[in-house]
């Protein structure tokens, strides 16, 4: 059975062009970039080349890009690194209630160590309020960290406005751009972004490599100490093939950005419309249009997400859910609860995220299989029975 992949937000396959560019660095130009001899000099050049390409994608300077082991490390570094560097200036951080766990758990960690964190609420679309943000700022505030686009519901925040508020108040602004990169325009200069987390495996690059953009002049402590790599800001032998792959992925993303956004948006809207036309008792989660071009998040009432995912998997479709049952915790996704869904509705959510290899016929196939599955599961559901009973 051919697989239909609808989980590009979780991770993407490595583009074959990207992989080809990486290959020589595994066993040919494998030298340590810190070395004096030519082997090392070649990999050093490859790294600088990748840095330049990534910088270009977000309108930064190559010297402002620092490689990390992934988006999670970038988030941890930005938040803890700023907190520790500025702890004599203040101890207050503002974030939102729908951040990725990499941000939320970094904040929780800091709360245990003397910092105070404000978690801004969001409206039913997942947007923070700029007024809320302004009113929470005080003279102890050292960092605003609000994600660019949400990984579950796809909502894109008013980043430029947040950047403006941060700048006016002289507070550093970090944004988790892991989902946004390659899927929407990011311009760190225009948007006043001081720190930006990104990760290669969400844009057809390899897993285990990410970067933190750190605007020139920003004060930040390292969180991984050791050798002098990454201009003494992030220690550890550089993951050269990973960095090269990230660079190539960024280059491809840059060259295809507009087309990618347009194509995904069309497919996404077709997918949403198809579901709404064919299945009742459904709710679209996230913002109707201020959302990632590849993100669809829908709650199917009366059924539970994991059962839905397993059923989809049986017909070769890969999706994801905000159900508690998929995470091994008791509560469903904090994001879905934050936008006001009941536990019950949150449990029945399905995220279908599409990407550049998604074909129109994949959408057709999904629209053919999904209604059958929903029907089957609802027919098993004691909750649906009650609704039908009342009809």
């Amino acid at each position, binding site marked *: 059975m051919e697989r239909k992949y609808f989980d590009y937000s979780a991770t993407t396959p490595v583009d074959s062009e990207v992989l080809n560019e990486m290959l020589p660095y595994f066993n040919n130009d494998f030298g340590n970039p810190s070395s004096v001899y030519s082997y090392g000099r070649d990999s050093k050049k490859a790294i600088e080349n990748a840095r330049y390409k990534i910088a270009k994608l977000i309108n930064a300077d190559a010297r402002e890009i620092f490689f990390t082991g992934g988006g999670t490390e970038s988030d941890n570094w930005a938040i803890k690194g700023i907190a520790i560097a500025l702890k004599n200036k203040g101890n207050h951080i503002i974030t939102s209630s729908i951040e990725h766990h990499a941000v939320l758990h970094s904040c929780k960690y800091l709360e245990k160590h003397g910092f105070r964190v404000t978690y801004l609420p969001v409206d039913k679309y997942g947007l923070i309020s700029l007024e809320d943000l302004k009113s929470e700022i005080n003279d102890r505030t050292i960092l605003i960290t609000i994600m660019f686009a949400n990984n579950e519901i796809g909502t894109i925040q008013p980043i430029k406005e947040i950047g403006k508020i941060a700048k006016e108040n002289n507070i550093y602004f970090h944004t988790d751009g892991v989902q946004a990169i390659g899927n929407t325009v990011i311009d760190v200069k225009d948007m006043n972004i001081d720190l930006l987390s990104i990760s290669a495996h969400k844009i057809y690059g390899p897993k285990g490599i990410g970067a933190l953009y750190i605007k020139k002049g920003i004060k930040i402590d390292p969180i991984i100490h050791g050798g002098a790599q990454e201009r003494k800001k992030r220690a550890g032998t550089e993951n050269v093939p990973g960095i090269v792959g990230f660079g190539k992925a960024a280059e491809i993303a840059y060259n295809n950005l507009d087309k990618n956004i347009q194509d995904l948006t069309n497919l996404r809207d077709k997918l949403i419309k198809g579901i709404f036309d064919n299945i009742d008792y459904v709710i679209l989660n996230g913002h109707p249009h201020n959302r990632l071009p590849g993100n669809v998040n829908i709650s199917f009432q*009366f*059924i*539970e*997400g*994991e*059962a839905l995912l*397993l059923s989809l998997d*049986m017909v070769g479709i890969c999706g994801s859910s905000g*159900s*508690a*049952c998929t995470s*091994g915790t*008791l509560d*469903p996704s904090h994001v879905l609860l934050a936008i006001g869904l*009941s*536990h*019950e509705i949150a*449990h029945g959510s399905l995220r279908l995220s599409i990407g550049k290899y998604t074909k129109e016929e994949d959408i057709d196939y999904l629209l053919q299989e999904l209604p059958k599955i929903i029907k089957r599961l609802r*027919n*098993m*559901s*004691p*909750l649906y*029975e009650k609704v039908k009973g009342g009809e």
Partner: protein
Amino acid sequence: MYSDKVMDHFTNPRNVGDIKDADGIGEVGNAKCGDIMKMYIKVEDNIIKDIKFKTFGCGAAIATSSIATEMVIGKTIDEALKITNNAVVEALGGLPHEKVHCSVLAEQAIKAAIDDYMAKK
């Protein structure tokens, strides 16, 4: 993640549905936690002649409901009451640690249906 037995019972659940003139109905769990199991039983001469279930829940919840109905059918009330959640897990060839609570629900759903039957008698 799931054993073949679990997948089989998830894909082809036995005894799904309801019984219009059930002798006992039990419903446990709640939507907040993501699992509701409802069981209907038909009892004759102290023997569970028929059982049906409806479940809102994850794959494990559906599979445990299904196998539990199979384990109960044809048993006396006393025998049915002795079915533990461990027996359900075992019959399924194991469950992931975080899914064991589903088997507890199945045990409770059977007990609730029998309680209802006893109360009505």
